[in-house]
């Protein structure tokens, strides 16, 4: 049971680290917008998938795969 004398102070250090990390996150505005960053990552992913598909499909077209008729 003597190990408690090491483990509990270790727990306290972890607590201090967690609290420091939390303060850092608040100061860096990580909690400002809780919605859109979560979706950004998905949008990015789907977009790159789409771009890949388009490139594979539309080889003879212009590089971005757009055709304009005005």
């Amino acid at each position: 049971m003597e190990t408690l004398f090491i483990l509990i102070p270790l727990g306290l250090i972890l607590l201090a680290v967690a609290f420091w990390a939390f303060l850092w996150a608040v100061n860096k505005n990580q909690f400002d917008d809780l919605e859109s960053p979560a979706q950004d990552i998905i949008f990015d992913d789907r977009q790159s998938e789409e771009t890949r598909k388009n490139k594979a499909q539309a080889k003879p077209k212009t590089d971005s795969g757009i055709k304009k008729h005005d």
Partner: protein
Amino acid sequence: MQSDTENRCFHCGLQIPRGQNHHLEVLNDTQNFCCPGCLHAAESIINSGLSHYYTERTSPSPTASSDNLLSESECAFFDKHENQNDFSTPTSNSERSTLLSIDGMQCAACSWLIKSRLQEIEGVTAIHVNTGSHQARLSWQPEIIPLSHILNQLNALGYQAQPLWHRSVNDDADKSQKIALKRLGASGLGMMQVMMLSVGLYAGAFSGIDTIYENLLRWVSLLVATGVLIYSGSPFFISALKGLRNTYLNMDLPISLALAGAYISSIWATLTGRGEVYFDSVTMFIFFLTLGRFLEASGRYRANRTSQALLKCLPETATRISSSRDDELVAVHNLNPGDHIRVKPGSTIPVDASIIEGESSVDESLLTGEINPKNKSIGDTVCGGSQNIESPLLLEVTQQVQHSLLSNIMQLMERGLEEKPRIALLADKVARYFVLALLLIATGVFTTWWFIDPDRAFWITISVLVITCPCALSLATPVALTAASNALMKNGVLLTRSNVLEKIIKADTVVFDKTGTLTQGKFALKAIWPLSNSSEEESLTLATTLEKNSEHPISLAFQNIALASALPTATKIKNYPNQGVEGLIEGILYRIGKADFANTLCPSHTLLYPPDNVLNATQRIFLASEHGPVACFDIEDPLRQEVPDILKILKSQGLSRVMLSGDPSPSAKKLASSLEFDTAHIDYSPEQKMQYVRLQQNNNHQIIMMGDGINDAPVLAQADVSFAVSNGTELAKSSADVVLLKENLELLITTKDVAKKTLGIIRQNMAWAIAYNGVALPLASFGFIEPYMAVIGMSASSLVVVLNSLRLR
């Protein structure tokens, strides 16, 4: 006719006008666009490889009209080095940072689009977009890319981006919100840690534990709880002390007493090794209370943060004509009385001024709530914040921007907030008696036991204080209010001050503003009276064609009318300020506008006036050609459809209904009597509205005020409870206690219902808490309560309160 979706712009969802023919292949499908602006926006999105935006967005994008772009002089203004200190700060030698307000942002896809688009630009070092507040923090390198170029990229996508000026306001609110969040985090983390340690202590209490380990756990708990108490608990002590200094016992006092009692007795127990520790209760208690206050503060913060958009009511730059007659773009706060400025049609007038050249009509709806533009000519004064509609004006500045009418209204509002009557809330009232009783009893118990058994006196007094710890009582109100605000939020009601729920129940008078609150605040076509043998459809087509060329708010009434046939083209369009529009359609000259104006085309015919039986018809306009009158249109600001029902419900609940309107027209009076208002006043200035409410308050009436405009802001601040409607101006929203997020006044009734239920729950919670304390107190005073029972009882009574409050969901 084409199908509906084909006829709508793929980018912004507006109907595509005839003759506009723009297509682009998007996501392997050919799509149509309404204007070159939207086409370019779509092109720019696809070219930067962000076409996926269109599949992810949840609502149509803002229309990207090509006049969104900054003019050359505006570009020069934003890029000029001396000006940049007004709206940005240098972050390093080559980098600056600024806060942009971005209009038109609707969903997470918009924020993704903006971020992805700007990140590609060389010279943009960082961009953080906040969807909730419609703001973005931008860091860029002025030497690589001018700010105007970045802004124009956003404008080309259809968003309206502008740097914000008065950042200090923002910074204060930001800072206190961050501190509140940190306090919440600290108490949460601390609570978890102490709880974990106390599991060991509880287990030890049942199965035995060496004193040395027990002491270790206690000392560590003491350490963590001390941190939490000082960092997160200090606001309660400060507020209680402030209350005491003003000889006012508030709810923070019993909270502080309970915290201090439990904490000090635990320290005593830790030091002496006798008695029980309550560090877990202390931290948990702090966490729950901090959570409740944090949620309340965030609601207020969110409402205030959007209100910064108000600063945009005033254009931040103005065109000054210097003595050499050269135009020069200057910041509005640099304008002095005597300066001459030019205001283009369609722009906002920056400061109070008088007209020295030109004639136009001016929309003062922002200040008066009156949506009918007023005619102004040389010598007339115009107010900052109003909009010039028809023709250019040369103005002489009469007031600096900080003394302008709009600023005065804001000051009036602040005064109203200060004067707002504070009714004693139930929780505070209970707290007052409770604290007194508690202190008296504790003293009594101590003295009695001092004579019976001086050894036990201290411990019994502590256990009395702990077991009667008003945790449940202190949680009773905030937890219920938090649950209620969440329930309301789901229904589309944002509470900015949660204690208003109690006041809503007590209110006996509901005051409504007219324009924009009872009515929709925009013109719509009410009726067509043909004056010749042309059909309604034909006259409507002609009118729409002509009105398309007008900037006047009335033309909005013709904007969204679906016509079966294509619009003819009109040539030789001429706008007559304050009069109407003239144009040549298929070889015939037409005029639409005021009766006299239209009639001059065909003086030989007299215009026949249709019967005037239309309620609330604010405007009647005539269409005439060279051959005679064609038709007459009634334009009105339509009533919201739910209004009559709401007034009926309010009447059945026994509330008196009052209408205060800034609108001087008699139709307002007619509207009031048809809706059976108890009292109605028209032509009221913001000051008069405020005085009316103050007078009623002096007669012991409690007032709910519902409004939308800037002119309502002072009275909203003065009223006991104020509601701002969703399409209202930001200033109104920021001075209101309750903001309706959906455009539906029925939410007033919903809020009242929830408030009633909440008050019921609060009463149950209090009854329970007082009953619990009432039973526990005598037992503890006679020394029957074991310490562990006290702990369980304390937690259980709080838990009951929390669970009961959750029923509000």
